[in-house]
């Protein structure tokens, strides 16, 4: 038998107190496409970071073509021919496509960059990826995101990859672009390159992959040949048999909907989205990354402007132009990206909670009412069981789950009529996730209309009274409570429709 291209054995990795992966095994054969699938937080991204040298494993061994491999930096990994294309392209906007492809390893002749030699190679790569040749001289900043990602792939290929890691390459690509990508991947595997393919769109796996390794809760469940699997089987492996639980079937009122989205659209992101939320109801919007779920939440909160359709609040059309407008209408939003959009990193907890409520927590809207600020912060710390010695702790010193609760607390101070939660439990540990869900249910029980936009399936199923699936920027199906995980995931992954040609 041929030596495996890449072999990982018993890999574990902790971040602080959180076990990101444990006892993970992976064997990638030469010239194959090996998919790694799993829900968000299953440990996929940590695993590929370890393979790419960006993180080092706490325990376990790695071998490359049979010989032990030790990676301490991404440079080491590159030395082995392990190339990674991340979701966020690591490109230099001001440099041309050609320069980006060769940055850090330019061809040099006579002390100068050998542009003609590079150009020949660049043209090959562009041709391979189906990009026009004139793109070689375009600044990367002038290209679309999808095109930038293709440049990232070209960059990885220019380095004579032996293992190419594609992290969710299809999330931001159109169908025809995906076709091109698959063509590239097939040509690469034909020439012996191993491709590690991460994707949430399970239907894709059956068109491109040879083997599938399933991860769940930081562990590798196993590896199967694709021919032995179906979409449903993969889904069942991902979610595990165990947790088909719906802890409590809550009864919701038949009151008039508080928030209604009518054929809402934002050009380029989503269209024809119709959802309604009643007081006391938790409505889930489940969609994969890039499906438009996040943007829907942004429009409701006034961070993004709708280009079509209507938003109705208590039956009256509203048009928030800024988060301030939304807040005045009683709409609060927990942003999806905690670090970038939520946290004031080195400021205290109290600061982080009060920052959206300065008029309320002040005298004459000018002087901070520090006593009330402290009282509110302490009340929130207690109500949301935030673990901290004091409300004066900087939020940056807290764990992900606690920090998320602080950002959530900020949304609750003025008891919003409508609470929109975008990815409420991303990057938090299991315990905190449980607690956050409990808090959300308690809020709904008090009459708040809750809209949860998430790409976490188990969360969508557990928390929602009703669940909408968002796919390709529109709401496709609605599920009642008690829907099976497999059905929902299959719907979102596009397996209930014919595979596009």
């Amino acid at each position: 038998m041929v030596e495996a291209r890449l072999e990982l054995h018993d890999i574990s990795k902790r971040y602080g107190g959180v076990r990101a992966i444990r006892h993970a095994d992976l064997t990638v054969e030469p010239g194959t496409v090996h998919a790694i699938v799993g829900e968000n937080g299953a440990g996929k991204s940590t695993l590929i970071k370890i393979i790419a040298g960006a993180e080092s494993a706490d325990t376990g061994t790695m071998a490359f073509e049979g010989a032990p491999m030790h990676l301490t930096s991404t440079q080491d990994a590159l030395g082995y021919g392990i190339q990674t294309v991340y979701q966020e392209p690591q490109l230099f906007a001001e440099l041309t496509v050609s320069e980006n492809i060769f940055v850090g390893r330019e061809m040099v002749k006579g002390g100068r960059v050998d542009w003609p030699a590079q150009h020949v190679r660049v043209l090959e790569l562009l041709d391979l990826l189906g990009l026009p040749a004139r793109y070689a001289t375009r600044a990367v900043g002038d290209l679309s995101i999808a095109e930038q990602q293709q440049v990232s792939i070209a960059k990885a290929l220019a380095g004579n990859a032996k293992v190419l890691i594609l992290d969710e390459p299809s999330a931001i690509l159109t169908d025809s672009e995906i076709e091109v990508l698959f063509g590239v991947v097939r040509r690469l595997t034909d020439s012996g390159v191993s491709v590690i393919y991460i994707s949430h769109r399970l239907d894709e796996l059956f068109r491109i992959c040879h083997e599938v390794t399933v991860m769940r809760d930081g562990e590798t469940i196993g590896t199967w040949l694709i021919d032995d699997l179906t979409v449903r089987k993969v889904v069942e492996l991902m979610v595990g048999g165990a947790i088909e639980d719906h802890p409590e079937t809550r009864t919701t009122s038949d009151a008039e909907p508080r928030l209604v989205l009518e054929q809402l659209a934002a050009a380029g992101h989503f269209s024809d989205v119709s959802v309604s939320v009643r007081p006391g109801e938790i409505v889930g919007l489940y969609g994969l990354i890039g499906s438009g779920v996040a943007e829907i939440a942004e429009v409701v909160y006034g961070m993004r402007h709708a280009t079509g359709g209507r938003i109705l609040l208590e039956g009256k059309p509203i048009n928030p132009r800024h988060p301030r407008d939304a807040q005045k209408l009683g709409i609060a939003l927990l942003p999806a990206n905690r670090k970038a959009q939520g946290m004031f990193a080195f400021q205290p907890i109290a600061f982080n909670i009060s920052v959206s409520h300065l008029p309320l927590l002040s005298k004459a809207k000018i002087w901070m009412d520090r006593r009330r600020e402290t009282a509110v912060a302490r009340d929130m710390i207690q109500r949301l069981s935030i673990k901290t010695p004091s409300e004066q702790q900087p939020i940056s010193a807290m764990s992900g789950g606690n920090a998320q609760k602080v950002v959530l607390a900020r949304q609750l101070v003025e008891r919003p009529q409508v609470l929109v939660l975008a990815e409420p439990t991303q990057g938090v540990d299991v315990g905190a996730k449980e607690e956050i869900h409990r808090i959300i249910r308690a809020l709904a029980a008090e009459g708040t209309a809750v809209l949860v936009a998430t790409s976490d399936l188990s969360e969508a199923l557990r928390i929602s009274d009703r669940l909408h699936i968002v796919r390709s920027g529109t709401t496709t199906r609605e599920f009642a409570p008690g829907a099976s995980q497999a059905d929902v995931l299959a719907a979102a992954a596009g397996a209930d429709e014919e595979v596009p040609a």
Partner: protein
Amino acid sequence: MSTDVSTPSSAPTPEPAEPSATKVARRILPSPVTGQEWVLVAIVVALWIVLSIATPAFGSASSWQPLLSSVAPIALMGVGMTMIIITGGIDVSVGGALMVAGVTTAKLLVDQGVSLPVAVVAAAVLGLVLGLVNGFLIAYGRVHAIIITFGTANLFQFVGRQIFASQTVNGIPGTLDFFGRGEAGRTLGLPHSFVLTLLVAVGAWIWLRHNRSGRHLYAIGGDPTAARLAGIQVQRLTLMTYAATGLLVGIAAVFTVASGTSTLDQTIGSGRELAVIAAVVIGGTSITGGRGSVLGTVLGALLVQIVASGVTQLGWPSQLSDFFVGVAIAIAVGADLIRQRARQQR
């Protein structure tokens, strides 16, 4: 915005059969002159024409020769500053460094009677050392460049004034006349200092455009972390950039001393750092790093001096020229911002 949304399938790529190297090189590189630079060229030419008509004296050689002489030191330091700003840094100590190199050169000329080459080498080496101090602290101290260079600006001024010893340097001989404003400082009517500056600028332009390390400066300014991950030696290049700037400041000090009178006072270098930054910024280099060109900086320095010269020759108060410099900065950067925004919307 008509963006290019050509689907890949509809893009025929006629592969040219063995294209000649120069032809390929031309097509593989972005346009050598940016929009901002064309605009600057247009403004410089337009100003030149308008001022020549308004005040006939402006067009005379006795007017533009000193003008080019005074452009030289700013543009020369600007070449270095452009590289620094491209990497996302800044150097507010060039005024202080200019003082140190200038007064040392003057003292060497007066006390030691050194020759021109010795003076130039001494000034350049001294400048290089000061630049290395900056570069070392910034590259390895991991402190923001503006803070370090605020600090070294004070240090350099201290050193400079110590060398001045609270006096002016008097009786500077004509050793440096080759770079001076007089007849000896010109060939074919062009000041040597300006010609040398142009040569350095062209060299730097080629280096930034065609050399591996030159291209890496842009990458560092664009995203230092990604640059490091791409295997670029960020710290070493950063150090080198500040060192090179120091060296150029040393030569600029020679020009400054050469084009002055036989007396050098302690105002040398004062406020020059801002004048240099202004020239760089007017030239279209982005203060946030990753973008810019030496050509623009030379044009920016030229524009500033033409405005200053024009203001005096029109009989306006000479101090008014700074007002126009401010306006020029605002317009140049404003125009650039508008272009950037238009681009992001595609």
